[in-house]
């Protein structure tokens, strides 16, 4: 085992590992972006990363703060217009993995990033769906990465911004959707996957040092643990080093933002 690491590092590393070298990834900003670039800088050097700003095959040296940072375009194979991105590339069915974060997730992996409270009289107005509603159904498969907590992992989202497994079982197919949907949720505590039958998110791997109780406490439904429950491999030395170097480069680059210096 390598040196110590944070729960967020464990989350990012575990998320990165799920990606294959031949994947074509539609990358959300934040935790998904960190995981995808870690994969690219470790075991999946040829992975294709696509950001909805139009950048295809981008290889940022530092993590973008926004979905359309100049770094993404400067290191991309090519950059297309946003309508083309959503028409030819996302709807085109060319993406193997859509990698999302979320404000709120329910036990069938439906996502809410729209509102807390009634839509017309929101208690909290969240940023909105952005690309998620169509990412959720157009990509062959969806990975979700987000820190776990009782308020964010809920029994049922109040507003379904994007479809996961709907009401469970074959609900997704009943909506006429042929893609696989969320197949993996990686948190700072564990990895969840939909039960093959019910499609309820079920813990399949626990990160080292995390108890079942802690996971239950941080889940808004009576979470189940899979029969073949595993322990997540701890981050390897290379994984940690590469991730930390990436984060350090990112901090240096964004710290040099010109409102502060120059």
């Amino acid at each position, binding site marked *: 085992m390598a040196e110590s690491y944070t729960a967020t590092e464990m989350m990012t590393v575990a998320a990165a590992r799920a990606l294959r070298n031949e994947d074509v990834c539609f990358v959300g900003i934040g935790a998904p972006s960190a995981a995808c670039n870690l994969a690219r800088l470790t075991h999946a050097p040829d992975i294709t990363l696509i950001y909805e700003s139009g950048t295809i095959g981008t290889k940022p040296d530092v993590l973008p703060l*926004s979905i359309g940072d100049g770094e993404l*375009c400067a290191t991309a194979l090519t950059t297309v217009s946003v309508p083309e991105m959503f028409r030819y590339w996302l709807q085109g069915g060319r993406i193997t993995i859509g990698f999302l974060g979320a404000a709120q997730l329910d036990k069938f992996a439906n996502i809410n990033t729209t509102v807390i409270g009634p839509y017309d009289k*929101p208690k909290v*107005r969240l940023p909105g*769906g952005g690309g998620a509603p169509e990412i959720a159904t157009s990509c062959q498969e969806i990975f979700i990465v987000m820190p776990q907590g009782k308020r964010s992992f809920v029994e049922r989202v109040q507003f*379904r911004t994007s479809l996961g497994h709907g009401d469970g079982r074959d*609900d997704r197919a009943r909506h006429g959707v042929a893609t696989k949907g969320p197949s993996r949720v990686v948190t700072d505590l564990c990895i969840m996957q939909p039960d093959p039958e019910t499609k309820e998110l079920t813990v399949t791997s626990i990160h080292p040092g995390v108890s079942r109780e802690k996971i239950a406490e941080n889940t808004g439904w009576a979470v189940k643990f899979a029969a073949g429950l595993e322990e997540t491999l701890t981050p390897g030395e290379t994984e940690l080093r590469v991730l930390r170097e990436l984060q350090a480069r990112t901090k240096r680059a964004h710290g040099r933002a*010109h*409102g502060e210096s120059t």
Partner: protein
Amino acid sequence: MASFVSLQEAVARNVRDGDIVALEGFTHLIPYAAGHELIRQGRHGLTLIRMTPDIIYDQLIGMGAAEKLVFSWGGNPGVGSLHRMRDAIENGWPRPLAVEEHSHAAMANAYEAGAANLPFAAFRGYVGADLAKVNPRIKSVTCPFTGEVLAAVPAIRPDVAIIHAQKADRAGNILIEGIVGVQKQAVLAARRSIVTVEERVESLAGTHPNACILPHWTVGAIAVVPGGAHPSYAQGYYMRDNAYYLAWDAIAREREGFLAWMKENVLGKGPEAFRAHAREGAYG
């Protein structure tokens, strides 16, 4: 037909109270200087369209310029909420803000349809998503060949599109490079347009044959405003001012602080203030 004017004149001539206005820019080339000019000239009752409203929309909304927002993702990228937008939606301050909300795919398709002079866009979207239940402008069409039911949204046709670009040539042809977003579509879909540019050059000859160029006869007013996309960035000119985005969270959190900041930094200044940002963040 393109004409080179001051930003003040461009806004005065082209934007009226109550207009439907799209200030576009996908992280890159966001027309901040033009947005500030709208605020200084006191425009109000606007319907503001944008896929990704960020700080400039927070400022417009917080100053009471808008009565409606059409959008698909509204936040401070990588930082958090837009407090002024939330205050308007949640509490009606400084005035109520109606919301028409879509997904990115819907808005990108709707701009595309607008540029193509079509009345609507059809796409495979909103499947199993609740937005279709709360937005009556999301409808459907049926494919006459396969019977598949697709989502349909009306084309976006703004009264005015406002964008920032890298270059205008002498004749007023506009070059946009890098992350081009939906700006070309927005201008082609709009009745009128304002384009701010980093610089005016003699000619665009030598540019790549398939570069994104808006011919002069498709644009309206052009104002040369170096730095006019700050705190966003202009590829080839200056980088994104991430510190501004980070600082905005605290500035916009409370109404008083926001108003004081706007008074000092927007109302009391002019487009020429942006020039400093162009220099500060310059490449190399």
